[in-house]
């Protein structure tokens, strides 16, 4: 069993604090969900765990099986078993999906060892079929000209083949139609086993109709303010987040729509908009 442990994680962007002390522990075999309104730092948490260059960790720890991940670069984190399914995956022109995934698999092997080509093609075909991807998708350039839904399926395709210990799924449900949502949900769900755990970030409960989750966390203003079981999903779907804000005593900042800056993730946008590291101005959108 592996453990991903986050302790008192504080993260800033351009000097503005976005994550204000996150504590979280996930074991393989567990699926955790983080829910929360726009701009609370969910994507910042996902990117920070993976090691995105934009985010500065000012305090706290992220450990994988006791090893401090903050001291190792992005590629090593991946090879140690982390995977981030991105909200906005990059386009890589001139490189086919199949070549890219094969290179990523190869990067995990000891020097001198090679992936048998036939076995790789079979694995890729099987995973593509399970995701009901168009047959030409593995042979197209990575994410170039893909629809929003195709990009998300492509993230799950890579996850299925790379078989990480822990996957962080950052709003993998956004941009998916009803059928694609079901396919993605079922594929994620089918990966649940004692060697795989996931942190699923979402706004909506619909994806969770297909995924059996163990723990639900609510994130507000850069902190996890409430954790519980599946019953929280239904409560949030029914009542939104205001009752949790009331419960923890959070008050929204007044809206200031003048002089907005729009860069980065929702939480970053909010911080830059309001000019402080407290509440964002679009919490209830």
């Amino acid at each position, binding site marked *: 069993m592996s453990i991903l442990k986050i302790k008192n994680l504080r993260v800033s962007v351009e000097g503005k604090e976005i994550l204000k002390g996150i504590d979280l522990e996930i074991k393989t075999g567990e699926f955790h969900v983080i829910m929360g309104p726009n701009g609370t730092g969910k994507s910042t948490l996902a990117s920070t765990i*993976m*090691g*995105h*260059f934009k985010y500065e960790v000012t305090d706290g720890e992220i450990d994988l099986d006791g090893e401090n991940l903050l001291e190792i*670069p*992005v*590629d090593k*984190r*991946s*090879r140690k078993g982390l*995977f*981030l399914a*991105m909200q906005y*995956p*990059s*386009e*890589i*022109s*001139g*490189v086919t999906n199949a070549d*890219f*995934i094969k*290179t*990523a698999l190869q*990067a*995990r092997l000891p020097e001198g060892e090679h992936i048998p080509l036939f076995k790789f093609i079979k694995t890729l075909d099987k995973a593509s079929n399970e995701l009901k991807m168009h047959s030409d998708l593995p042979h197209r*350039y990575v994410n170039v000209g893909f629809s929003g839904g195709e990009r998300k399926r492509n993230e799950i395709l*890579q996850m299925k083949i*790379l078989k990480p210990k822990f996957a962080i799924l950052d709003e993998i449900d956004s941009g998916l139609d009803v059928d694609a949502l079901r396919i993605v949900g079922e594929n994620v769900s089918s990966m649940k086993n004692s060697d795989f755990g996931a942190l699923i970030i979402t706004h909506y409960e619909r994806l969770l109709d297909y995924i059996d989750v163990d723990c639900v966390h609510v994130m507000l203003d850069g902190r996890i303010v409430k954790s519980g079981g599946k019953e929280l999903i239904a409560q949030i779907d029914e009542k939104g987040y205001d009752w949790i804000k009331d419960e923890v005593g959070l008050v929204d900042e007044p809206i200031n729509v003048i002089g907005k800056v729009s860069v980065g993730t929702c939480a970053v946008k909010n911080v830059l908009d309001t000019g402080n590291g407290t509440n964002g101005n679009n919490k209830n959108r």
Partner: protein
Amino acid sequence: MVPMATIKIDKPAPNPIVIEDSDEKQLIHVLPLQNATLYHKNNNGIKHVIITLEKAAKLTYLLWQKACELNVRYDIYLKQDAELTFYSMTSSNENILMNPTVYLQEQGAKVQIMNVFLALGKAEVSCDSNILHEQGSTISNHESYIIALDQAVVKVNNNSKIVKGAKGSNANQVTKGLNIGDNSQIIADPNLFIEEHDVIAHHGAAIGSLNKDELFYLMSRGLTEEQASKIIIMGFLQPLLDHITDELTKTEIKEDFEHKLK
């Protein structure tokens, strides 16, 4: 359909080269040559190639140049409805001076130029590429793709001129560059000289470094920074290599680029 004749030049070529009326040819020049001198030299030591495409002739010309110093000038004349596709693929840590000039002398003449430079080490690369629309209804597409590594300096000066009276002509220019060396430099000068009102012309240049989000994406899948950078650069080059129809030459060029990016 009869396949287009492909001639791989590995011995002294005639100069000037003349493609006769309605003839269709593909010429591939690979440099450096073994035991052969391709070009006639003038007094200044500049290699000078002269090509004429007669009425409705079609030529695909590929210059593949690796690891040798080069100072070459081209003068290429296109007659009525002639079509030239001119590709130059250069990868070198030696100095390169290129000066191709294409004269669209009669109506309906059409040229596509694509210059690709991978410059390494302390290479100084300079390309003055000129297209002259001397008659109306002539078309040009002028593209340059540059990768500058290490301390290489690449200067690309693309000039498209449409003379007075060349109505209905169309000139397009694109320059893209990846400037990724510690002390490398790319200087792009995309010039349009338009003397006629009734024309269509576009130009632009975009020079940048490697996209950090793309690097992060690739590294998040376990690729080292070096592997990720190489993939992005080869990704930049691959669509250009896809234009080359001679598979053997294409593979050779790709392998050379990959080798130099190690």
